[in-house]
């Protein structure tokens, strides 16, 4: 059960963000995230988001936007709440009893946590790829076809075949598996499994894809393939990716958000974050002083 508190948040940028800050901030968390957390016409926007696990607060007052067809990377040390935040975006946290999300999260202006928002419909629009490749113990075909079948996206077998083929092609897996669609998806290699999971996620044509450390269990070659794929997918989809690898964030994302112990410290153009971080904590992290 998710308790919810709607706050009247002015969608305009908070005053502090307008000022250009020349000197580096101190190590205390900034009142508002430094950099450019908000964009002009966001696909998704999060305002004053707090997340609690029981008594423990995991996310503190996060304000951030995700633009249309943008790849936003979330980085930060372990336990900083980036995965928790990502799972709040498509209400995956609903399954955790003790989890409570407050604040306002919207998708195309619709409140995600509103009573009339159906979490099942939401997850069809906001797909997710997980850290560990988790194909169903079914055939490759059925793995991809599962979502479309659930949502009744194909009325005929030929239509379903087409969806499966396009999804696998987009996930860069079609040529590798087209001759063995009836074999179990669990028999593929780790990297192929993860691309299968991506194919499964895009088979229902979501608007946003959330990726929770999609490459952390993969070798560098498989990682490179997934990263290429992300660049390709960003033409059609909005992507939020959590990653532990700063190089990966630098390679794939347009903007980067740095989380620290539940606080969103800094959001900016990826290049800026990695070349000229505005906040001391961000700088410390990207230069490898901790994390």
């Amino acid at each position, binding site marked *: *059960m998710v308790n919810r508190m709607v706050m009247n948040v002015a969608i305009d940028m908070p005053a502090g963000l307008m000022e250009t800050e020349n000197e580096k901030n101190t190590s205390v968390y900034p009142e508002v995230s430094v950099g450019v957390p908000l964009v002009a016409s966001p696909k998704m926007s999060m305002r004053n988001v707090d997340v609690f696990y029981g008594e423990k607060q995991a996310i503190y007052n996060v304000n951030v936007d995700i633009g249309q067809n943008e790849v936003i990377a979330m980085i930060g040390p372990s336990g900083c709440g980036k995965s928790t935040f990502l799972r709040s975006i*498509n209400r*995956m946290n609903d*399954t955790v*009893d003790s989890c409570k999300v407050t604040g306002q999260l919207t998708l195309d202006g619709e409140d995600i946590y509103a009573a009339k928002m159906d979490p*099942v*419909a939401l*997850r*069809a629009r906001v*797909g*997710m*790829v*997980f850290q*560990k490749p*988790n*194909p*169903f*113990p079914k055939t490759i075909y059925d793995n991809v076809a*599962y*979502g479309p079948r*659930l*949502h009744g996206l194909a009325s005929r077998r030929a239509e379903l075949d087409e969806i499966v083929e396009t999804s696998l092609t987009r996930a860069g897996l079609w040529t590798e598996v087209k001759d063995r669609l009836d074999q*179990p998806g*669990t028999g593929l290699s780790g990297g192929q499994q993860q691309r299968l*999971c991506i194919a*499964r*996620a895009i*088979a*229902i044509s979501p608007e946003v894809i959330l990726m929770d450390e999609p490459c952390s269990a993969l070798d560098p070659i498989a990682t490179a393939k997934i990263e290429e794929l992300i660049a390709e997918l960003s033409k059609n989809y909005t992507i939020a990716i959590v990653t532990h690898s700063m190089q990966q964030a630098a390679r794939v994302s347009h903007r980067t958000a740095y989380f620290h112990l539940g606080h969103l410290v800094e959001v900016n153009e990826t290049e800026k974050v990695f070349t000229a971080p505005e906040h001391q904590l961000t700088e410390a992290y990207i230069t490898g002083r901790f994390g």
Partner: protein
Amino acid sequence: MTDLNQSRTEQIQRSLAKRYRAEKRFRLYGTMAIAFGLLCVVLLFSDIISKGYRAFQQTYVQLEITYDANVLGVTDVGDSQQVALGDFQGIVKKALKARFTEVAGRKAKRDLYGLISNGAGYTLRDRLVANPELLNQTETLWLVADDDIDTYYKSIGSKAGAFIGRTSEGRQNWVAQLVESGDIELRFNRNFFTHGDSREPELAGIRGAAMGSLFTLVVTIMLSFPIGVAAAIYLEEFAPRNRWTDLIEVNINNLAAVPSIIFGLLGLAIFINFFHVPRSVPLVGGLVLTLMTLPTIIISSRAAIKAVPPSIRDAAIGVGASPMQVVLHHVLPLAMPGMLTGAIIGMAQALGETAPLLMIGMVAFIVDVPGGFTDPSTVLPVQIFLWADSPERAFVEKTSAAIMVLLTFLIVMNTLAVVLRKRLERRW
């Protein structure tokens, strides 16, 4: 420095030897424990089989039977009332008298008539009804011997010497004559597999109890598996975690440890006295065993559901499956092998259960083979209990044979469980 190193190496060597000895000892204990267990099983089985295998054979005596209409009092075989009243045991007596013409005197004659089972008349009646043209004809037939003769004949030539018991000298002589003429032999005991219980050991069969067990188990599995799985799914997937569900969980675990006779009392009070379900029938037996089996099935099903990796759930939720779809499409198929194993273990337990069934009247002496869920019946373990309690010597081997049948049932069920699990198991 080198001295120090050397002494340290020696120390390690010494301690290593000690560790290896301890390890060897530990392995030996394990081997001994398993050997002891196997020895017990072998002893148990060899005892049961050595005592029981003879029950699958029965002593038969060959006689020349004349279907004499006058003795029978039957003129028309089509008349069922005449046939029902017919003195078929009379023609057996006549045949025996004809075989041993020298026998005279009331006592000796009664002794003689006791050679053949009281049930032989029924065999003859069934034969006559099936073949009406046999009336007033003569044929040579193998008839079931009395249980005392059976026990005596089987024990002839055994190391412990022949078991005489109630077998009089006259009977011993007659048996000797029959052996000489080859008119007595051991044949496969069909009665044991086709008859219900009987006071006469040579007529008693396991079929009534086996069918009773089958019907009872059908009721048990039809009720306890769906209820148990539904309860497990609700508790594991949908129920909120609060004081009430904690209370329910504790109580389910407690129920699994309740002595089974208590469930019998509960069944007696609720199903029979309150709902007026007929007593001694497989229906009420199945209901009581359902109560007893439910905790086992719920606990094992919950464990099986818990063992489904959360990543599969996440994946299904992530592509927009509703909670019910997550359960039906993913959790249930993956948990099914574990659930089935639990159910079969529960069933095996129920199959061997005696105490609760005593409370609901399934201990009655029932001769008919039950044909449905509301026919009075007994079950295999109760039948074993009843036979073990009977004074006739011939019931000893019947008891062992019944145990063998029960064990066969169990082995078949466990094999089924293994096969099902192997078939349904999916790797991920």
